[in-house]
């Protein structure tokens, strides 16, 4: 799932790069081959920059914070104590490199890359807290080790690298495009004004007067506004991802050490000040009260985030509207008109690919709730929560989508030329679009929920889980694309949605049942029966069949 996390982050970056190129360079009038070349350039440069930022982060942190290696010869007592703590952690845990800094505050953090991970302890923690409050020292050490075990470093630092690159590269692309357009306008205008006989200061004055400032603002203003909004959303999303990892790290500590009461006490006495909702959005850490609450009842960790739903819907709306080349309908229209079918087929493939990638994020969020529901064994609870999650997520996703579309229309001249009655009409159009989008997405999520939960029960290894996750996410994406674009937009027939759903469901169910005949234990190779209640261990060799499940999504 970490790989999927990486793919999602990188692809989002590509989406933004592509969209900017498609809209801004398209507006200048570059031909499709030139746009494709620019797209390839962005596609290759942005991931390179992200990877560079990600892989260099440890060096940068180490240098900036003057970190030093935590060695046994220097801190023998503490070192041996920490190694003793590691002994109590399952063998799959790969020990990080220990470092320390000279900060007197009592804190610790984890950083690194997928290959090498580091835990940094502050000097205050090592020489004071270790002796004076050993339980707190232990809580902190276990929490940081849990970050390592959950592979949070990968997720958090990749998310941070994407954010760091995006906030620089998107404005840079916009500035280059805008600068180039102004340069072309100035050149053209200068030429014509000089032909008209103007010279010296007059020539420049008339040249500058011909620059359509309003047009440039109306063209590039919305893109700039969107970059700002996207960066704010991504910033808050990154912080949400990192905050969620804090909860998972606490949950992992409980799983390891039966250390609940002491961890709770450490959190409660940590004395962090109360944070407002706004502060929480801008912080890496959740509030202490929330952490303590989740330590007592972790069910909230397995609920799909509505903030993610809104953000994903918003991004998808942005892509659809800002880049017509991402719309599958465009291929159909161009096909009818006999234009550019080859290039547009490529665009549509890219569009399908991007939607699948977005669906990975949605699917990942839902798989967390499947995990809880499948293993809780409460069918009534399962059905109720699944139905509620689908309804809430679809509505909020569609709300994000329609908000994006409304915001984009705010940047158009037509919007301001409209009469009040037109605005009212448009409001109803948007409401209808929101309802339709909710329907398409709810159908997709229903399909995902039915088969995601079925397949989780049939995943007996991490490899199985990844394969099933990918398969069902891609199938759900295709169902959405067929419903939304083929049934609704091309064939203009809502009635096709139920039969399409049924056909997909029957075929997938048949496939899953046929595969059931061949499901075997990955350790002993004996056949496993799929029962209504999942068997946690293989009845033949007692191998734990779901060891992959915790915190994987």
């Amino acid at each position, binding site marked *: 799932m970490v790989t999927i996390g990486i793919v999602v982050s990188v692809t989002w970056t590509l989406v933004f790069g592509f969209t900017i190129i498609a809209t801004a360079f398209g507006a200048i009038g570059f031909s499709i081959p030139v746009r494709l070349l620019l797209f390839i350039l962005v596609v290759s440069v942005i991931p390179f920059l992200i990877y560079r930022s990600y892989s260099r982060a440890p060096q940068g942190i180490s240098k900036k*914070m*003057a970190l*030093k290696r935590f060695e046994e010869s*220097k*801190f023998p007592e503490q070192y041996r104590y920490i190694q003793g703590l590691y002994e109590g952690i399952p063998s799959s845990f790969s020990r990080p490199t220990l470092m320390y*800094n*000279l*900060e*007197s*505050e*009592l*804190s*610790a*953090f*984890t*950083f690194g890359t997928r290959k090498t991970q580091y835990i940094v302890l*502050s*000097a*205050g*923690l*090592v*020489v*004071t*807290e270790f*002796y004076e409050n050993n339980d*707190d020292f232990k*809580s*902190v050490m276990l*929490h*940081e080790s849990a*970050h390592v075990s959950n592979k*949070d*470093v990968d997720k*958090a*630092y990749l998310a*941070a690298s994407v954010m760091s690159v995006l906030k620089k590269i998107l404005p840079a692309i916009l500035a280059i495009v805008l600068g180039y357009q102004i340069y072309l306008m100035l050149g053209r205008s200068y030429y014509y004004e000089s032909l008209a006989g103007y010279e010296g200061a007059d020539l420049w004055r008339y040249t500058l007067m011909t620059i359509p400032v309003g047009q440039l603002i109306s063209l590039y203003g919305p893109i700039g506004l969107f970059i700002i909004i996207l960066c704010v959303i991504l910033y808050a999303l990154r912080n949400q991802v*990192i905050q969620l*990892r*804090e909860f998972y*790290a606490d949950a992992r500590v409980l799983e390891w050490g039966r250390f609940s009461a002491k961890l709770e006490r*450490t959190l409660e*006495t*940590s*004395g*962090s000040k109360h944070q407002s909702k706004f502060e929480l959005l801008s*912080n*890496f*850490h959740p509030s*202490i009260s929330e952490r303590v609450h989740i330590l007592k009842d972790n069910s909230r960790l397995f609920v799909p985030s509505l903030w993610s739903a809104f953000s994903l819907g918003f991004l998808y709306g942005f892509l659809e509207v800002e880049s017509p080349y991402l719309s599958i309908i465009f291929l159909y229209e161009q096909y009818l008109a006999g234009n550019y079918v080859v290039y547009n087929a490529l665009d549509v493939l890219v569009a399908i690919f991007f939607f699948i990638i977005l669906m990975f994020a949605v699917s990942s969020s839902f798989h967390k709730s499947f995990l809880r529901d499948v293993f809780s064994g409460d069918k009534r609870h399962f059905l109720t929560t699944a139905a509620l999650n689908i309804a809430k997520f679809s509505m909020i996703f569609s709300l994000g989508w329609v908000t994006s579309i409304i915001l984009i229309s705010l940047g158009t001249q037509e919007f301001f030329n409209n009469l009040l009655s037109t605005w009212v009409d448009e409001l109803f159009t948007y409401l209808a679009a929101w309802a339709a989008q909710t329907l398409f997405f709810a159908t997709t999520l229903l399909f995902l929920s039915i088969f995601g939960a079925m397949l989780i029960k049939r995943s007996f290894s991490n490899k199985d889980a990844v394969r099933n996750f990918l398969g069902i996410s891609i199938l759900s994406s295709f169902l959405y694309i067929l419903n939304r674009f083929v049934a609704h937009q091309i064939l203009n027939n809502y009635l096709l949605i139920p039969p399409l759903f049924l056909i997909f469901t029957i075929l997938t169910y048949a496939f899953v049942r046929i595969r059931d005949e061949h499901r075997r234990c990955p350790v002993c190779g004996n056949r496993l029966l799929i029962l209504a209640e999942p068997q946690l261990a293989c009845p033949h060799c007692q191998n734990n069949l779901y060891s992959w499940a915790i915190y994987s999504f």
Partner: protein
Amino acid sequence: MAEENSKELASRISFEIVKDLAPRELPLFDDYKEKFMKNPGAFVEKDSEKREKMLGFGVLDGASQLLTAIVLPISFNAIKKYVMKKTGEKLDNDQLSNLRKEAYDYAITLGMNKAKAKLMADALVGKMVTMSGARKVAP
């Protein structure tokens, strides 16, 4: 050169104070000394590097008061003010009393608690007298 001598003497005095009052911090002494020799000013800013860190536990209540980080700049200032400028002269009781008070106040402003600050100020005066040659004049 005088600056280097002051730093070196401040380091020696600080080491002795840390050894007496906070021996657990001794493994960190060389690190702090190295940082101090490079930039004595860095120690004056209170919690200059304090900020939220990604994948951290957060900051536990009651910041630790590491003596080493505080005693180094205080000794350095004391030596510059009371020893280097008065080479060959002895400090009288008033000067020692002032030195003690200044050290105490400075420690408080850098975040040390009162009890520790008092101990540190007393120790500093004692070490200054015995190690720097700033001998106390008989009353």
